[in-house]
């Protein structure tokens, strides 16, 4: 009810809004801008910054050319298609000037003066310095121009409402340095809160799709996956260290925490190409938001056992099952289908270390169990076969229940059936598309 009222309020505001908010001026140049060849060093710096910004993930269509746009981003307010960031004059940014690019990144306004939907995370990019934006622009405009047709957006919210949304939630401007922290931490904060836009997934959003400012990094959802909390509520069974997180961010895997899956896989593929010092700075900043130790945390997700330290005695798991084991017995499913890799062979992650078992939602555990984990085409990385066909919904429910209570030592999830149904639906939709 409160949500509905708030939504109605904003709709009303929106009706009067366009009259009150001056339309931003479109800019003049109609000819492609001729650019002098950019300094290769600046271009290289821009490439690294664009990788930190994860631009290519949204601005590349499935099976499409890198940064040529056209990927559908589904939001509760409709579908918005990412734009072409290559320097094609008609379909890309070939006619854009640096100041227009800056205005888009800092203020969320398109070249034609229209409001940009905040699926484009300018609420984070607004923190990026002009110098860094210059480098990113130099990188983008140095690439091959690709002509693409981008489908029309299918948004239920007209663009002028975005101005109202901005007046409520958008705080433009750079982040001041925090003198109580060192340069590395400040660099990490600048990157994490700005270009890397961690909060776009890891911060919960309100009914109008804005990040909840007072719950920064408290955990969110992205494409069906959970983006776990990175603040004091981090569900990681073993607290992250800056070293662990640097390794994870640069390789997509850390032996104490597991593999980057879902939308995070692409983030780590990008960060693999970035100077290590920047990734480490991000890790230092993010880890500073998390609890240093869960020792003081009584009960809750961490339970009483020491996470990670010999989670299973070698003989705690028999190689065979009692003949009376039933197909709906979560412990028996775990022992017969999972334990072989997760406890013995092949450096499978002990599930007592897995955030997907201690997270607030069962979403990630179910998606990983169903679909497995695969490295990017042509590259090395963690691998796990999916069990979507092998396990019935009832068996998945039993397995999730077992892992949650016996391995995660956490209170039962209430969303298991719902998440199973969603995961099955998504798989079907993916196959049909």
């Amino acid at each position, binding site marked *: 009810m409160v949500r509905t009222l708030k939504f109605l309020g904003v709709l009303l505001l929106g009706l009067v809004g366009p009259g009150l908010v001056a339309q931003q001026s479109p800019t003049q140049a109609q000819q492609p801008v001729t650019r002098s060849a950019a300094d290769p060093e600046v271009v290289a710096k821009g490439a690294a910054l664009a990788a930190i910004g994860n631009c290519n993930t949204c601005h590349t269509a499935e099976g499409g050319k890198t940064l040529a746009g056209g990927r559908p981003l589904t939001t509760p307010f409709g579908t918005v298609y990412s734009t072409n960031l290559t320097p094609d004059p008609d379909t890309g940014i070939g006619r854009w000037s640096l100041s227009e690019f800056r205005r888009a990144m800092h203020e969320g306004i398109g070249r034609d003066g229209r409001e940009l939907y905040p699926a484009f995370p300018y609420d984070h990019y607004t923190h990026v310095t002009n110098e860094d934006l210059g480098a990113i622009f130099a990188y983008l405009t140095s690439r091959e121009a690709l002509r693409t047709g981008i489908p029309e957006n299918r948004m239920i919210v007209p663009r002028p409402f975005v101005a109202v949304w901005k007046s409520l939630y958008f705080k433009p401007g750079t982040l001041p340095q925090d003198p109580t922290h060192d340069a590395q931490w400040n660099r990490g904060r600048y990157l994490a809160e700005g270009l890397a836009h961690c909060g776009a997934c890891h911060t919960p959003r309100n009914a109008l799709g804005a990040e909840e400012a007072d719950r920064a990094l408290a955990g969110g959802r992205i494409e069906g996956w959970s983006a776990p909390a990175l603040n004091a509520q981090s569900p990681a069974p073993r607290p992250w260290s800056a070293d662990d997180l640097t390794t994870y961010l640069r390789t997509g895997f850390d032996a104490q925490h597991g593999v980057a899956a879902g939308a995070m896989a692409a983030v780590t593929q990008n960060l693999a190409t970035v100077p290590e010092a920047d990734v480490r700075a991000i890790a230092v900043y993010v880890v500073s938001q998390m609890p240093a130790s869960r020792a003081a945390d009584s009960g809750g997700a961490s339970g009483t056992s020491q996470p990670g330290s010999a989670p299973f005695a070698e003989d705690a798991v028999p190689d065979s*099952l*009692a*003949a009376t*084991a039933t197909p709906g017995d979560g412990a028996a*499913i775990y022992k017969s289908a999972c334990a*072989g890799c997760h406890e013995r062979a092949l450096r499978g992650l002990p599930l007592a270390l897995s955030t997907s078992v201690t997270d607030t939602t069962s979403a990630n555990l179910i998606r990983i169990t169903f679909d497995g984990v695969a490295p990017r085409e042509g590259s090395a990385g963690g691998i796990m076969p999916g069990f*979507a*066909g*092998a396990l*019935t919904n009832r068996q998945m429910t039993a397995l999730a229940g077992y892992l949650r209570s016996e391995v995660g030592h956490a209170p039962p999830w209430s969303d298991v059936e719902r998440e199973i149904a969603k995961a099955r639906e998504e798989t079907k939709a993916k196959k049909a598309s």
Partner: protein
Amino acid sequence: MITLKVNGQSHAVDADPATPLLYVLRDHLQLNGAKYGCGLGQCGACMVLVDGEPVFSCITPILVVQERAVRTLEGLGTAERPGPVQQAFIDEQAAQCGYCIPGMIVRAQALLEKNPAPTDDEIRAALNTNLCRCGTHMRILRAVRRAAQGFKASGGKS
């Protein structure tokens, strides 16, 4: 005893419930179509259908498939009367050493039962996790395309 329903027949099997389905198919039921490749669910040579879904039988304990419909390569046709997918693989001579082919056929069967007219991209995506080391990929793709035709003609019956 665990009851398995394989290719429409019920079998009471005396095996540990943790035993991989592949071992029981080959060692107890003498159904040798599914092959042991990697034993880790990564190559697809062991693929069978469980309730119509492709499953790596080498990592699937019989515990979880009892009373469910298991179909193996042998369930898709016989040497005398091959099913449409099998016939297409024969017609295209898609096998070299042939070790991966049962898994390829089973995966293609699963695809065509859901999507009788797949695009090339859909065929490639479906077979992506089935590995072939001889390199008959182009023939395998042709066989699946041909199978789609045969599949339509036979109304999907194998």
